[in-house]
């Protein structure tokens, strides 16, 4: 009887550690996904900045050309 209780506790502990491990992995996965999302957003922001600057520059150049007309 004592043996079976001991084994039962052992099984429970093993199960708990497995659950904990899978939770950790899940959290790590979440972190990675968020990092990916942040990276994607950052690259979009850089692209948007570039386009914005380009448009502003072109508008200024056009302004200069129109002054000459």
């Amino acid at each position, binding site marked *: 009887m004592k*043996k*079976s209780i001991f*084994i*039962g506790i052992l099984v429970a502990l093993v199960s708990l550690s497995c659950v904990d491990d899978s939770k950790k992995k899940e959290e790590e*996965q979440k972190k990675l996904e*968020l990092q990916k999302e942040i990276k994607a*957003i950052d690259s979009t922001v850089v692209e948007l900045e570039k386009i914005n600057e380009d448009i502003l520059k*072109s508008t200024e150049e056009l302004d200069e*050309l129109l002054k000459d*007309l």
Partner: protein
Amino acid sequence: MKNKIFTLVLMGVFALFSTSSFAQSGESQSGAVPKSGNEVVKKVKKEKVDQERKIVKSNKKAIEKDVDKKVKDIKKEGENTLSDGDNVIKKGAPDKLDKEKNKVKSDLKEKKENIKNDFGQETAKLARAKEMEKKKQLKASLKSGNTKVVQAKDRIKEAKEKLSLEKKNMTEEAYNEKASKIEKAELYVKKLEDKLSSAGAVKQ
């Protein structure tokens, strides 16, 4: 005896089953990570820590600014209440100041805790906000660019009409110079139009 053996076997099977199933779920979740995942994870962790440091720094600065403002306000209030009576300031103002300081400290602590526990969600939130801001800026630029295009077209049309009227009184050289300027402006307008339309597509 038979019962005991049966129970032990049952528990063993359960243990094996639970271990393998959890291991499988773990593998499937981490499937996206490549084999050299340790390096990637380390790199990502380092980047995350850097970002969090930046956020904490910026938050701290903002909060310090806020504290300075509040202190100023309180001092000002104290000065105002001075005219009402000395007792009010001596008792009221320092208490309020301490309260504000404690509140700000706890806010800062809470924010730090949140940053630690949110798996980078705060960073993602900030990144999304920045993206929105940039989109707004681009929208404004697009609007002003489109207005500029319309104005430029009108201006070019005007210049062309004026040039055709003044053609007789001009030298050929001056005419050509003016005509080339108009042509250049037309090209620029076209270029800007193309850029605006492609930027509009990106913004979507």
